[in-house]
């Protein structure tokens, strides 16, 4: 697919052209997949890198419209009670540019958040089990990762 037409398909709001391209060519899900990559266990006092990975699992190139510069992806950490203890974007402003990211089949791109195992107030969280979710904002929608857990050992 040509450079310009791939971009144009991705840019057209309403997605008609993009949808047509994808429907014609996709044999699997036409949507990118998103997941969080992080260690299963860490120790209190560590700083953990949490990677939000977006991947094109389809058979054709796809162009994603990702909001923000830097891309305004979010990572949300909750405790077993469901209470939110930390999130990457809490209270922050995001530059309002739009990134057009073209992924070839099988290609992925990572966005990394760094969590110092503290709550929103900067206080160290207690050891235990926590749950992580990631959100990737796109024009007109957002992609959410499956939840995964993280255990903080003392």
């Amino acid at each position: 697919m040509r450079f310009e037409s791939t971009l144009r398909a991705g840019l057209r709001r309403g997605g008609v052209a993009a949808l047509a391209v994808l429907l014609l060519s996709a044999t699997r899900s036409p949507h990118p997949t998103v997941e969080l990559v992080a260690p299963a266990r860490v120790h209190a006092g560590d700083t953990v890198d949490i990677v939000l990975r977006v991947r094109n699992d389809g058979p054709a190139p796809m162009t994603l419209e990702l909001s923000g510069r830097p891309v305004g992806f979010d990572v949300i950490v909750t405790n077993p009670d469901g209470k939110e203890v930390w999130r990457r974007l809490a209270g922050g402003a995001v530059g309002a540019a739009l990134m057009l990211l073209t992924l070839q089949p099988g290609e992925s791109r990572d966005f990394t958040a760094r969590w110092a195992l503290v709550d929103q107030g900067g206080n160290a969280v207690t050891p235990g089990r926590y749950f992580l979710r990631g959100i990737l904002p796109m024009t007109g929608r957002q992609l959410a990762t499956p939840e995964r857990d993280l255990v903080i050992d003392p």
Partner: protein
Amino acid sequence: MRSRIVRPGHGLSLFALMLAAIVSGCTESEQPTAPQTSMTSTNPSTTLTDAELRAATGRGVDGEFTRLARQVPGFGGMYFDKSGKLTVYVKPPAAGAALRSTDVVSSLRAAGNAAVQQRLSKSATVVTKAAKYDFTELQAYRNRLAKIFAVRGVVFTDTDEEQNRLRVAIQPSAKEADVVKALAKAGVPREAVIISRVSAVDRVKTLQDKTRPVAGGFQITFFAPSEGPGLLFVCSVGFNARPASDPNHEYFVTASHCSDIQGGNQHTRYFNDLPKNLTSNDNRIATEQKDPRYGRAAGQCVYEGFRCRFSDALLAKYSNDNFSDFGTIARPKFGLQRIGALQIDRNNPRFNVVTEFGFPFLGEIAHKVGRTSGWTMGPVIFTCVDTGVNGTDIVQICQDWVLAGSQGGDSGAGVFEQVGPNEVALVGILWGGGTLDGAPVFIFSAMEQIEQELGPLTTN
């Protein structure tokens, strides 16, 4: 089949009597402007049959005028002229006869539907003009144009009530001869048709379309090789400007982070519409010209480990001065607080920049027009706020927050206050967004801050 143009009696005698009683010297009658060629043609293919005349119909005003022409013989349509006078075409029964407008009006008042009577009742003066065709004849000929759109370049067909003719509009590049040939083949007299040239009907332009000249609010795209090869970003033109340092050339202002690297001049290339490929300059409209580096912000950056500026703004120079629609911002069809229209208002396509406000006051209503969420507006809820940018080491000093929506791609959009129906005062450049208690906000750098860093700008 006999040749005929003047239809046999259509029953109603009132108008026929009126026409018979026409006397010369009646007031407000006009001489015909149409050619006086006889409708009786030697070419049998141009004659209308009774069946065609009976079948003639139309929708809207054409339908009502066709119906009226059956009720009021000789009625050829009506319209308001440029001075506001209601003008009625009447086909006279004999050459040289004048028309008495009062009788025409009374006939139309008796036969017309509510829409016609409303117009008659508000028209103190009615002017009559001699028609070449009655409206039923025009519609019957129009029905013969079934294949006219097969002619390349035909844009529209019309029964032109102002000219008492059919109109076939063609694109500038179309061949009039092809239309003439098609008319002859269809049996439509050449004299009954005006062929005019118009631009093709475009789809409604949006803020995301290619445009020349470029007004504030339209989309720009640019490569950011520092983040990866071929990686493309999308922002909005804020407003056009002429810097004091180069007042004879055209520039636009957009956000500093709408460049390869935020702060510092990388000579970023800007495109509208999309670039054709990585190296092509097709659709290139401008190049980054001035984008001060982030640093201590004249000693006002007190935040350790962070770099600052007073504005997230840069100056880009148009590659052709004619690309700038100086002093204007695109005006979409409507604006709302969270998200607005992207489609440009055809009837009112631009806001005119008439002045600048150095900074906003709390509580004022600020507007923006950006390529993703269109025209939005809301109250200024924070003024002169030092604002950190998520995921960076940047703090923007003294920024202003508005309770209104923005989305990725709106960066760089001009922020303004309305000072008249179509007049605006520039107040800044949008660069960021977020939420406040779940409500969307956009954040902008004020004009005073922008001009402190980019230098004095003329914007209107």
